[in-house]
């Protein structure tokens, strides 16, 4: 009888161990990695994009190049391009010399 109980324990372990499972970790990691893969943007591309954005904007205002950040923010369902560009001074008349 005690032997049977041991076997049943073993069975219920096999049947019911759902919490803190490695499969859920796998799923979560996959989800995140695919958000990035599917947006198919490499760090180099983001760097180039940042340079181009800075080139355009610096014709209109003084900006803090060093403080500028261009990133992709992803949540559950979507990916957003977020640029944070500190402004030092806005020119009264836009000079497009920089372009």
């Amino acid at each position: 009888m005690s032997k049977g109980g041991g076997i049943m324990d073993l069975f219920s372990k096999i049947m019911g161990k759902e919490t803190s499972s490695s499969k859920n970790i796998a799923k979560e990691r996959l989800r995140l990695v695919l958000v990035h893969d599917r947006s198919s943007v490499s760090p180099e591309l983001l760097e180039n994009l940042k340079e181009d954005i800075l080139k355009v904007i610096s014709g209109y205002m003084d900006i803090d190049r060093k403080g500028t950040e261009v990133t992709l923010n992803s949540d559950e369902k979507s990916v957003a391009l977020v640029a944070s560009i500190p402004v030092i001074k806005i020119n009264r008349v836009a000079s497009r010399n920089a372009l």
Partner: protein
Amino acid sequence: MGEVIVITSGKGGVGKTTTTANIGTALASMDQKVVLIDTDIGLRNLDVILGLENRIVYDLVDVTHGNCRLKQALIRDKRFENLTLLPAAQTKDKTSVTPEQMKTLCEQLKQEFDYIIIDCPAGIEQGFRNAIAGADKALVVATPEVASVRDADRIIGLLEAAELRNPRLIINRLRPVMVKQGDMMDINDIIDILAIELLGVVPEDEMILVSTNKGEPVVLDLNSLAGQAYRNIAKRIIGEDVPLITMEAQDSFFEKFKKILGFKR
């Protein structure tokens, strides 16, 4: 007019060649006229899985370069006379064949065969582009692992970009016991993530190793679970409506387990 089906995965070693050999053999056993093309130039394997390695004279590169006639390079299977293999070249590299040449070849083979099944090499380079060039349909093989599903997702994107829409998925090496324990992603997890149609699920099965040792595809073993899974996949390819065997697989694993523990059925 035949149909060209390419078997892809992105990630290496997940079971493309095994799948090609078994689907091909199963279709041939169902009286379909089948040719299998090994496009893994430099790493040819399909011949060994089929047990045909001693019969090779000419190969895919010989055909595309006009060193021989197409017929001369086609190797007839030992067991099914309506199953043939066009082997890959072993000593050339992947650039010795072009996508254009593959298209022409597939068009030619479609005149004579019901199914042309192409074993794609791992990766997304020229070997992949060659393999998909002449295809009408694509199957994606993935195992229930993060890296494999990730690469499958990439491949699905590339297939769709190449106008091979609606590829179907084969999940290989599923271990029902691990799924039950919560230590392996299950079928629904993978389908949710990849959002493509499921063609079949092949369980992890030691008989695959035994069958590759012998050079006899596992579909020929009527007692093997993987063999049953591949037979079902072949039936679905010719349009039969066959329910998934995953539950059978689970039960049967469970039965074996119970036997080990001394339970009687």
